[in-house]
């Protein structure tokens, strides 16, 4: 379980997170929604320790993430980055098997490649893709490779940062379905940040609405459409008028 209590983060005078309280239950898929620039990615990076939060507590299974042994902590996570963040200089299979060829999970090269090819197959990519470089792939294929890399070491927790941004609706649907299938299949805890409502409905067990640095509403996805929160209603219906300023 991931617990955030009164988490704040500022960049200079810009107070991005102003006291975030949120709980993500084990084995559940939490989707954080909110407009652009509301701090969704910063929140995710704070949990991973990529950005250090200023105040408040972030705990994983009751342990403060700042006090956790870094390698062991990160070994529990997989992450799909918004742009894929694949390493240009490495082949596709080397990207997928990156964690498997280093550190405590190090395996022989042949075994790591075999696992990488299997994970690529799991996300719908054939073995012929394994020896290509990321630059030779389409955006959708890069997202799939990123997904394969995120699940390669079978992490307990997977983060998805805007998984469908830049994809056409069909490919976005494919990625959403893949994420849902994989999360259920692995029994992993998932946290996704997005402003794509089709992703929310496809991926989420629970939803949290982040706005102006705080969580405005959280609850099961089944209650999202009927909730009375004006921020959620404006956001999910894409209305220009409401408590969220259209021009920020």
């Amino acid at each position, binding site marked *: 379980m991931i617990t955030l209590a009164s988490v704040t983060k500022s960049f200079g005078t810009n107070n991005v997170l102003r006291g975030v309280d949120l709980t993500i239950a084990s084995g559940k898929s939490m989707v954080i929604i909110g407009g652009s620039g509301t701090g969704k990615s910063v929140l995710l990076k704070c949990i991973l320790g*990529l950005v250090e939060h200023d105040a408040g507590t972030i705990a994983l299974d009751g342990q403060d993430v700042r006090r956790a042994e870094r390698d062991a902590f*990160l070994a529990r996570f*997989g992450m799909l*980055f*918004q*742009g894929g963040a694949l390493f240009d200089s490495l082949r596709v299979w080397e990207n997928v098997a990156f964690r498997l060829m*280093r550190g405590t999970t190090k395996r022989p090269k042949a075994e790591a490649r075999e696992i990488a090819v299997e994970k690529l197959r799991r996300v719908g990519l054939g073995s012929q893709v394994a020896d290509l470089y990321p630059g030779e792939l389409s955006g959708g294929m890069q997202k799939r490779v990123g997904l394969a890399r995120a699940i390669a070491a079978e992490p307990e927790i997977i983060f998805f940062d805007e998984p469908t941004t830049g994809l056409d609706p069909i490919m976005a649907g494919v990625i959403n379905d893949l994420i849902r299938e994989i999360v259920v299949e692995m029994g992993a805890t998932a946290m996704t940040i997005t402003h794509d409502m089709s992703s929310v409905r496809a991926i989420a067990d629970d939803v949290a609405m982040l706005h102006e640095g705080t969580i405005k509403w959280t609850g099961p996805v089944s209650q999202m459409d009927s909730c009375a929160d004006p921020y959620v209603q404006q956001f999910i219906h894409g209305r220009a008028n409401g408590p969220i300023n259209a021009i920020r």
Partner: protein
Amino acid sequence: MSPALGLRAVGRPTLAALAAIGRVVLFAAATLGHLLRPPFYWRELGTQILQIGWFSLPVVGLTALFTGGALALQIYSGGARFNAEAVVPSIVAIGMVRELGPVLGGLMVAARVASSIAAELGTMKVTEQIDALTTLSTNPMKYLVVPRVLAATLTVPVLVGVGDAIGIMGGWLVGVTRLDFNSVTYLKNTVDFLEVWDVGSGLVKGAAFGFIVALMGCYHGMNSGRGAQGVGKATKSAVVAASVLILAANYMLTELFFTS
């Protein structure tokens, strides 16, 4: 202008400069710290030795060749004013191995390598590849910075050594073909006047310049701003900082080696 405003005008940039120096020193200290502690990425080191060392050979070699030739012409023409044309081989050799070989080699590597490292790491930062490395339990300092700094520190002295030889050869070529020197006499004078420390000091300078070049490339790349403009600025800053630091370090090392 009031004294307070004047003080502020001087104080702000001074503080900013001191803060920047502090950040670079901390980055260098962190790099050296990671250099001594495992894990070590040998494959990355090998790749960087190839990229920084081997692929810089043509540009360093050509620079040295033309510099050695021009130096021979200059010394011959200057020496002719007081009948000292005979010193061309020894001055070319000493000038190349002590100063021009390391400095021009270092500057050429700075132009080629510092820019390339800063652009590569800056792009990696902008596209979240450095964050991705961290989430994959790989320390970016160990995986990206240490191999580049170590490779440059090891290979630039070799490049300087090769550049020295080619530069002396450039001087010899001009001396024999254009200035009517006897080939054997030219080479004998070169060898007779060169001392081991002349060459050694140049190689030490090369190691220092290699360290500076890679450190500046890595520092500016890892701290690149967002977007194409951020990467462009990081690349420019890396080359400028590396070039200026090479010239400053060259003066200090020359002072240290040859004036005591």
